[in-house]
């Protein structure tokens, strides 16, 4: 059977953990990683950077008719998300009671992206979920304020 294992494997750090690049010369962040900074080109100093994965939804759609690989999942939400550090990414928004809205804050979650049929490898990677209403730091502060610390 045909497999795309090497092509997928090469991008695992990007798909699992949003590892991109940061150009220290112009301070721009890139995802996916770039070999050449479009601002500085050969004058760039590029370093590896792991994005936090939190961001804001810029636009989205609900897909009802998909390619063969994704047909079983419809309807599903796809969005363009602006990561907090700057670059935008395309990603699925998982179903939640919050739905999906332009301007919504999201965080990364680990999900199955796809499979090479029944016998091939499983592609894992990052999708996005709404950020909880109360962040955990706020929860800590609230609990210690209430004397539950």
């Amino acid at each position, binding site marked *: 059977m045909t497999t795309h294992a090497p092509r997928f494997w090469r991008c695992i750090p990007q798909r699992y953990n949003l590892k991109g690049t940061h150009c220290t010369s112009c301070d721009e962040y890139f995802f996916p990683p770039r070999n050449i900074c479009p601002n500085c080109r050969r004058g760039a100093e590029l370093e590896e950077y792991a994005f936090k994965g939190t961001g804001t939804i810029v636009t989205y759609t609900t897909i009802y008719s998909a390619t063969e690989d994704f047909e079983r999942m419809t309807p599903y939400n796809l969005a363009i998300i602006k990561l907090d550090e700057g670059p935008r990414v395309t990603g699925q928004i998982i*179903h939640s009671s919050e739905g999906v809205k332009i301007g919504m804050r999201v965080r990364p979650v680990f999900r199955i992206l796809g499979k090479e049929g029944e016998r091939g490898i499983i592609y894992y990677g990052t999708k996005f979920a709404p950020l909880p209403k109360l962040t955990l730091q706020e929860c*800590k502060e609230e*609990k210690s304020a209430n004397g539950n610390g």
Partner: protein
Amino acid sequence: MASGIVSYGVYIPRYRIRVDEIARVWGDGDEISESLRVFEKSVPDLDEDAVTIAVEAARNALQRCGANPDRIGAIYVGSESHPYAVKPTGTIVGEAICTSSDFTAADFEFACKAGTAAVQACLGLVSSKLIDLGLAIGADVSQGAPGDMLEYTAAAGGAAYLIGREDLAAEIEAFYSFTTDTPDFWRREGMPYPEHGGRFTGEPAYFKHVVSAAKGLMKKIGTTPDDYDYAVFHQPNGKFPVRVAKMLGFSTKQIEAGLVVPMIGNTYSASCLIGLAATLDVAKPGDRIFVTSFGSGAGSDAFSITVKEKIDEIRCAAPSVRDYIGDAEYLDYAMYAKHKGKLKV
């Protein structure tokens, strides 16, 4: 030197199906949920499996204590629904939580006690100072055949425990296991659904092993049920843990905090570990917890645990079991069957 739980993390998918809805489809009447003492169970999303659940639980464990994943020297994931028969879940977890490459990994299977077996293996490597931190995970998207009794309780969830020697949130003072060759519940290679021995899964299996392991541990370290503030037993349904607690001399109050099966079903390899996490979510420093898991085939692992001061510092930094229980969306049987892959195309 003391070793035990440095941190813990759980993950429970947000979809649920009510036991009454399953009973409606199979015509099993309205009393099933009461007789099992299970009212609803968790259902994985279309893009979730034991691996994604293990990763989310592990990420929560690391987030809770802020430990550097480079320190992890072993990853053992116990499940009866590893998506690959050959290719370990542990390596995917390692990559997803950004460990270095300096660790060992292997997947565990022992029905519902694969997770606690993984904890024991980590304790061994950690106490002997062969590794710094170990990650033990129990995660499952367990299957019950349509129309079978197991369908009412087979659920999805995961729990991850970081085992170490320093900064302990809870010390594991001792453990004891009782294991025999008992075919009460099994699944042959390549078969989609497990088989079980009906009532044979009760006294000669669950109760014999849980009681033997529990009594064996208490005898080994000289404790009695009164020495413990909490107890967590494996939860295939809401009745067995209540009955075994009584048989051993533990009160219903002691097991209350850790009894999650009525709301989420039996998460198999994660069952005891999620119950323990629910207990750690509320226990105070100095509290003692008695845990006994059960895995068909069969065996039980019993642990005696003392909660430390550190728990108060780290508890809030990741979602609690109640947080996950509270985030629920209900499915009807048709959507449930689609999610569980029961509809063959």
